[in-house]
């Protein structure tokens, strides 16, 4: 039997050799053309939405449950639309969208402090006294053109203690902070009627003219005036309405959930539609050193509705292919449950979720030890690998060398996760 098969295989090879020699190799350029065509179809991502889970969500109660194991607590798992992937039972709506979402379960970081961990996951660099690194949203705004966007392109909705910053790229790349979208965007409405406002701006010209006398033309006053004009453009722009979620039909608003975070996610979708490059929406309260199960039960209700609605909404509007969604916190939580029923900080094997922007969905990258040990070395993923993956999906040079103000260079040391980008 075997020798027969062997002969057969040998025969096929013989045939192919002959075929190659006969010039069927013209098939190769055709194949090349076809693959190039396929690549062209895959456009780079245009926008990034970061769902920031401040406090450090437990991977065991969200994306990486271990039901039946002692580390798993009482958390049960549910099947999802993604093959062979289960998530915690508190996220049923998200389970319906998992075919679009991939999980990285073997993230490792050495930063177990809230501030430092947040810095690391938001920038891809560990905190460093010689430079303040920019958040990934700031990098995107720097590298990608402004286009017709009249409002800030880097936004942070419901910012926590450490919102995304421009770092050494400059304060103009700091995320614009705004709060529950049910309220107006702060400081964007003139406090006086239009006529008085117009008068004031006329008066301002008189004061500026007096100050400009005897001074350099191209200098701080010019910059300040430029910023003033940009601010006034923003105030009167139609795009400002993107912040106002009350303009959406009630059904849509209900699907995201009647919570600030839910509204923030809906606002994020609206904002990327008018050209905002990166929106960070923060859900605080995951730091469950005490009563871990109850906290995650309550938090998951909020996260589930909003995250699932966002993915479904982006997909329906055909925006998902050009929009990357990252859901992460600064670290995970300990496999061991402490005496107060809580879990403590655990940066050695935590999860994040990625979707959209050409990133493949429905995959689980890496795994954690069911007995609570660290991930296997060959499976471990660095935080900066996630950054590299996202930057590559935008078609950017993810390891670009950047100059910091002190002259030192900064280069992301992560490698893109190929399985997610093929």
């Amino acid at each position: 039997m075997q020798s027969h098969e062997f002969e057969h295989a040998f025969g096929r090879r013989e045939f192919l050799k002959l075929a190659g020699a006969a010039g069927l190799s013209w098939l190769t350029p055709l194949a090349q053309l076809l693959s190039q065509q396929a690549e062209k179809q895959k456009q780079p991502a245009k926008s990034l939405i970061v769902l920031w889970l401040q406090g450090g969500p437990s991977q065991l109660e969200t994306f990486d449950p271990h039901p039946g194991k002692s580390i798993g607590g009482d958390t049960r798992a549910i099947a999802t639309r993604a093959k062979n992937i289960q998530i915690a039972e508190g996220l049923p709506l998200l389970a319906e969208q998992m075919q679009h979402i991939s999980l990285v379960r073997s993230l490792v970081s050495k930063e177990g402090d809230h501030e430092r961990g947040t810095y690391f996951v938001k920038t891809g660099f560990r905190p460093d006294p010689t430079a303040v690194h920019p958040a990934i949203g700031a990098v995107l705004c720097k590298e990608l053109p402004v286009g017709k966007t009249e409002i800030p392109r880097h936004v942070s909705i419901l910012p926590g203690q450490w919102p995304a910053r421009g770092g050494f790229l400059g304060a103009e790349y700091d995320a614009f902070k705004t709060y529950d979208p049910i309220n107006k965007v702060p400081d964007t409405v003139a406090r006086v009627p239009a006529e008085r406002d117009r008068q004031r701006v006329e008066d301002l010209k008189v004061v500026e003219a007096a100050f400009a006398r005897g001074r350099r033309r191209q200098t701080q006053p010019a910059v300040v005036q430029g910023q003033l004009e940009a601010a006034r453009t923003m105030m009167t722009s139609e795009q400002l309405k993107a912040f106002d979620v009350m303009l959406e039909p009630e059904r849509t608003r209900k699907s995201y959930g009647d919570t600030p975070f839910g509204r923030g996610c809906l606002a994020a979708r609206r904002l990327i539609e008018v050209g905002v490059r990166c929106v960070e929406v923060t859900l605080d309260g995951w730091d469950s050193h005490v009563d871990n199960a109850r906290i995650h039960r309550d938090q998951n209700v909020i996260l589930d509705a909003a995250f699932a609605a966002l993915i479904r909404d982006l997909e329906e509007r055909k925006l998902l292919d050009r929009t990357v969604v990252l859901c992460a916190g600064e670290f995970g939580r300990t496999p061991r449950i402490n005496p107060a029923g809580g879990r403590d900080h655990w940066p050695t094997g935590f999860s994040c979720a990625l979707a959209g922007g050409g990133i493949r969905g429905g995959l689980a990258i890496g795994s954690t030890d069911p007995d609570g040990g660290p991930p296997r070395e060959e499976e471990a993923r660095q935080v900066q690998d996630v950054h590299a993956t996202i930057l590559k999906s935008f078609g950017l040079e993810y390891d670009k060398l950047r100059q910091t103000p002190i002259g030192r260079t900064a280069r992301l040391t992560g490698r893109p996760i190929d399985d997610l980008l093929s």
Partner: protein
Amino acid sequence: MWKKNLFFIALVVAGGLALAGNLFPRPERELDIPFAAADVQKQDFRDVVERVDASFRQQWSAEGLERAPRADELTMARRLSLGLTGTVPSLEEIRQLEAYQGPEKIQWYLNRLLHDRRYADYVGERLARAYVGTEDGPFLVYRRRRFVTWLSDQVMLNTPYDQIAQQLIAADGLWTDHPSTNFITVTIEQGEKNRPKPERLAGQVSRAFLGIRLDCAQCHDHPLYGDAIKWKQMDFHGLAAFFGQTRQGFTGIHDEKGQEYEMEKRRGSDKQAVEPAVPFFPELLPEAGNRRERLAAWVTHRDNTYFAEAIVNRMWAVLTGRPLVEPIDDIDSVETDPGTVRRREAGRHKLKILAADFVENGHDLRRLIKLMVATEVYQLASTSPRELTEQEWVKHEQAWAVFPLSPLRPEQAVGALLQAASLQTIDSESHILVRIATALGTNEFVKRYGDSGRDEFDPHTGTIPQRLLLMNGNIVKEKTKDSILNASTRIAMLAPDDATAVETAYLVVLTRRPTPEEASHFAQRLAGKMNNARQRALEDLYWTLINSSEFALNH
């Protein structure tokens, strides 16, 4: 029954008194701050000033530059108040300045500020940022507030600066009782067995006290390119080793003998023990004392020129918005561009003159500030009477032939705003409610205005949220609206005529008088307006002045 009536009457009287106290300005306080003009006229003082002035003049003539004219006294008062107290002169202070007939008017004004608690608080905060940044740090073992208060106390007492540095580096004790130890505890990371991180401390000490950036040498000899290797890896780790025995325990920070500092030469390689060693001037390192005491003595040694030059550079930047040598924490960096090299050498020349006097006179911060303010360069205008090209402007500014413009820091912007909204000086003598409101308003404003943290002398360009905040923000509205507590309203009500109203607004917000064009334009806007219309007009004027680029700049 009658007791209740008495109580009620007492309440009404108390309320009335409080209201009266608020509405009617209290009489001018007697200023009992001694000022001896002779101090700044002594020969040794004048010598230093003249040598610094001569150095600048030499530089200008070599580069063919003509210096700007002298600034007027109000401009200088604004610079001093902003730089040293984080706010603008109040109307009271302006009146007092203009009324002063004695000698050395600018030094007299400076002297008052140097004895004001606001100076100690503000400069204390600036120094704290240089030492420990603005991070919240490890909550359990670090109290930034206490640290800053301790620093402010030292500034108020004019503690010699070398003693302050020694306290920061070498003190033992709990971070609560001995607040200077927060300099050490800020580097403790969670999960690191409560051990202060020697690498971070080496970086902190070298940048804040010596004005050099050794951090890059943690992982490799620095710089990577070019022939001149400035710092070797062992320079960094030798310095870090001085903190290798420092531990945090029940009695707080202390040094434990027998511990060793170990470094990783390259990521993943074996650790090797490193002996404490200083990167230069090894002859200045004493034998006696524990590791940190020896390091403190070496850092603050009178012959360790880096120490004095670093603080002189920093105080110059606090006063003027730009350091003499840039970057502020890397005075000695290797430069290749000849223009940059020339500029740095010129800056270092002045640094050395001031630093030598600083060491000679007991590391006296107040004296240092007085010297700097007495220089010709500090008192130059930021305008030029001649037409200059863009390139010429750059050359003039870099050589200090014209005073540089710099953006206000967030605390300065809100400080100026709050002071401008009050006709009285807001200081430690102010009513407690005023101070509380000031503190609350400050925090909210600073949060939205944006805070650059440690990197304070980067020429940042201003941001859209800042503009929005000043144009439409709550605090501006609150401080300019029609209210008896607001200066704009009081000016509208009390100024005898339109011209005086405009002039007072300009003095309080921009610390200058209006030009003839401005005066006539705004007098017209006020003309004939009474009561509410008048108050609205003043509110508009205030809004305009606050939103001018002039308001947001130090000039």
